[in-house]
């Protein structure tokens, strides 16, 4: 008998957009035979949803489907029924696995955007930054994480972000919170906030006139299950995180210059190091976002494009948090 006769397809991650039920998404991991895990994200009855998730964990799909199918809650369907739909879509190939990280695209060409680094759960800081950005005609605001802090988990901040137009990616701590992998030292966070974090992308792509920008937190993306060196923006991530150590190793800049023409993006933004910086190399702009609050005060970065090219400015709004 050949080895392949025993082999099982690789477990992959899926995100299913539901219809007519409370949670807008179902996140699950499965292979051809086994439903490894499932999570109803973004709404619904959290207790029941967790129970269903626990009961179904690592169950054979052949046994799962008859249990789920045809249950009605409202509008002719239910969370279990939607999960059955999701599994059937996976089996038929209509639902494709997600790559390790989720990319959200902002297709609108922008002239001026605001960039925020680590907010660390502080709602007052966000308000102050928002006021400052409003006076400068910022068209879109992107935050590179972490939203959550080590002192304050920041559920109020995250709720406020949910109501705002700000677009954020998860930082390493946000990601750990989203999937209940945070260290025990970190403050408690409720399920609703975790769900919000689980629905955030890990990468945002955006457009500054004809230049493509990409924003991410840092190297935790490279450790995500299923990370591929060849998925969109993985090259930028590998070069920034691995090759240049977040642009701190200038000795390898000649190699970076050699690789840069293969980039999809022209503007590469990250925030892991907690330092502010801007480098222009091989026609690309590399921007490191420091924390929103540091010894300089409360800061954000403006990125503006005009006929003269791309202009980066760090803007310090004040040296103290207004209460």
């Amino acid at each position, binding site marked *: 008998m050949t080895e392949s006769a025993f082999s099982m397809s690789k477990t992959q991650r899926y995100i299913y957009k539901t219809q007519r039920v409370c949670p807008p998404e179902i996140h699950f991991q499965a292979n051809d035979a086994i439903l490894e895990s499932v999570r109803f994200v973004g709404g619904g009855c959290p207790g029941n949803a967790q129970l269903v998730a626990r009961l179904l964990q690592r169950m054979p799909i052949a046994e799962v489907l008859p249990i789920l199918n045809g249950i009605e809650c409202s509008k002719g369907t239910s969370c279990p029924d939607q999960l059955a739909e999701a599994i059937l879509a996976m089996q038929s190939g209509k639902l494709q696995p997600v790559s390790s990280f989720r990319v959200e695209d902002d297709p609108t060409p922008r002239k001026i955007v605001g960039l925020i680094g680590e907010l660390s759960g502080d709602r007052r800081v966000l308000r102050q930054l928002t006021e400052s950005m409003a006076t400068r005609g910022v068209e879109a605001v992107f935050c590179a994480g972490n939203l959550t802090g080590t002192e304050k988990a920041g559920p109020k901040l995250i709720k406020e972000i949910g109501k705002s137009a700000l677009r954020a990616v998860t930082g390493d701590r946000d990601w750990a919170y989203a999937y209940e992998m945070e260290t025990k030292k970190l403050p408690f966070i409720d399920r609703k906030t975790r769900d919000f974090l689980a629905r955030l992308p890990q990468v945002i792509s955006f457009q500054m006139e004809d230049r493509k920008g990409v924003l991410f937190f840092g190297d935790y993306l*490279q450790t995500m299950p299923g990370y591929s*060196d*060849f998925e969109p923006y*993985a*090259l930028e991530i*590998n*070069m920034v995180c*691995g*090759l240049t150590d977040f642009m701190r190793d200038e*000795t*390898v800049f*000649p*190699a970076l210059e*050699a*690789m840069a023409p*293969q980039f999809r993006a022209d503007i590469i933004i990250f925030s892991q190091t907690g330092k502010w910086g801007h480098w222009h190399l091989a026609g690309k702009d590399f921007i490191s976002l420091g924390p929103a609050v540091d010894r300089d005060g409360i800061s954000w970065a403006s990125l503006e494009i005009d006929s003269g090219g791309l202009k980066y400015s760090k803007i310090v709004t004040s040296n103290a948090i207004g209460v």
Partner: protein
Amino acid sequence: MAESVKVLPEDIKAIIDVYEWDMRTREGVQRFRELKAKSLPSVALDGELVWQSIIPMQEEIIAKIQDLYRQKNQGV
């Protein structure tokens, strides 16, 4: 760079093993950093960087390989 190695004479290819790393990958980046390379293309022989930023002439590659081969096999 690998092309210049592929066209080496058979007697030279018989005494070497060739590895190529893809700089787009994490593995390639890791090897690049282990070798303390700075630019591309980079060529190492026996784990030591020999050429950077240039594609050496075939004669130069052959001479260097033969030199290293002789050094390693002295007294054998």
